[in-house]
């Protein structure tokens, strides 16, 4: 566990030196929200429609921005043989996975912390139930990132990795997106945490199942 924290710390340190990924992810997720709010046009005046559309828009922007980060997560290691170096580390292979998951999740959380207030402004929201929303976003992000990191490792050795990752990832994260969108919608519509217990349970189950599967298969995904 401490070793995976070391790997995560290495990734985050490298990221914060340039902030390249973080900047582009934030700007990208912002752009997604702007494009959506522009294309919905007049509909945004109708608050009933907004409550139905907005959770989906929020999660689309998270997913796309996350995909951007995930596709770089392992591909960035290809330069100068860093991936080989990582594999040579005297640690369990799953420690690499855990470290990468932690660093990806941290970056993703940072993006989300910046995106959510901007989203609230653009869609004229006053966000109630912030704690519940935070739980939904945290659980959803963990599920999304834990599968995404695994698939990022899976596609890193293929020729068309930037193309392949979204194709592989999107069908697999349907079970994250649906409860996350539902729960976000309920929380934004002045819901109580008890209203979303079903969704939260499903998200937690997804997180646990895919975290365990990833532990088991990661060493095959990253190669020898």
């Amino acid at each position: 566990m401490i070793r995976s924290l070391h790997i995560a710390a290495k990734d985050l340190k490298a990221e914060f030196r340039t902030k390249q990924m973080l900047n582009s992810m934030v700007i990208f997720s912002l752009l997604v929200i702007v494009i959506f709010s522009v294309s919905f046009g007049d509909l945004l005046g109708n608050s009933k429609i907004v409550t139905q559309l907005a959770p989906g828009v929020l999660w689309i922007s998270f997913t796309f921005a996350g995909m951007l980060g995930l596709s770089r997560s392992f591909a960035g290691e290809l330069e100068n043989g860093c991936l080989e170096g990582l594999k040579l580390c005297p640690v369990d292979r799953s420690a690499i996975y855990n470290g990468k998951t932690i660093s990806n999740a941290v970056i993703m959380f940072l993006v989300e912390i910046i995106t959510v207030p901007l989203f609230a402004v653009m869609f004229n929201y006053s966000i109630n139930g912030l704690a519940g929303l935070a739980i939904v976003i945290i659980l959803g992000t963990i599920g999304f990132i834990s599968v995404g990191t695994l698939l990022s490792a899976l596609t890193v050795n293929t020729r068309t990795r930037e193309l392949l990752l979204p194709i592989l990832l999107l069908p697999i994260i349907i079970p994250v997106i649906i409860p996350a969108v539902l729960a976000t919608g309920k929380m934004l519509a002045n819901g109580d945490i008890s209203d979303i217990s079903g969704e939260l349970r499903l998200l937690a189950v997804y997180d646990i199942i895919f975290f365990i599967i990833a532990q088991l298969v990661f060493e095959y995904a990253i190669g020898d």
Partner: protein
Amino acid sequence: MSKKSNQNNLLSILTAVVMLIATYMIFFSLPIMRDESGEILDNSFNIFYFHLPIAITSYLAFFVVFVASILYLKKGTHNWDVLARSSAEVGSIFALLVLVTGSIWAKATWGWYWIWEPRLTTSLALFLVYLAYLLMRQAIEEPEKRARLSAVFGIIGFASVPLSFLSIRMWRTHHPLMFGSQGSGGGGLEGTSLQLTLLVNLIAFFLLFATILSYKVQNEKLQEIITEKKQALP
């Protein structure tokens, strides 16, 4: 090889016979369906006898992919990879057929081709996952790497499908359960002749799947032999 192809021939003849019986039963031996109030239902319900067996067979196909993927990762035997690949291809065709027959049936009974109903959407999710699986196989050139990576994805994909079903059911809870006639509660399958028809169709489609799969595996192996021979040429 000749023994193997004899087996295949036998299997395909058997499949053809059972398939004919099954189709005959659907079109000629079924009694006229009536609903609770005694109204005669139209024949569109008959597509159900294709639809359900195809659906179950497609799930079976992907279960085969899942098991073969695990066994490939565990044992590293090449044959498991061939099985996984063949089963995924055949299974995707079946999954597509599920969507097609389901849509036709839906159009006839509900008036729409598509409804975001849990089972339909799950079938779609399953189909999409395995399209991604097949695309991924095409994207990787090295045979060993392709086998290993797609085995990993085969496992992840199979695990996601039941979760998809749960999440979609949550999403559309208010939707009535249209397929009620499958269970004991609905007004459909009480008669033995109906159940028998369904059973024969189920067997027929299992056999069809087994036949196509067996041919497919044989094809893949032949293709590998050809590729090897080609590479051996100067």
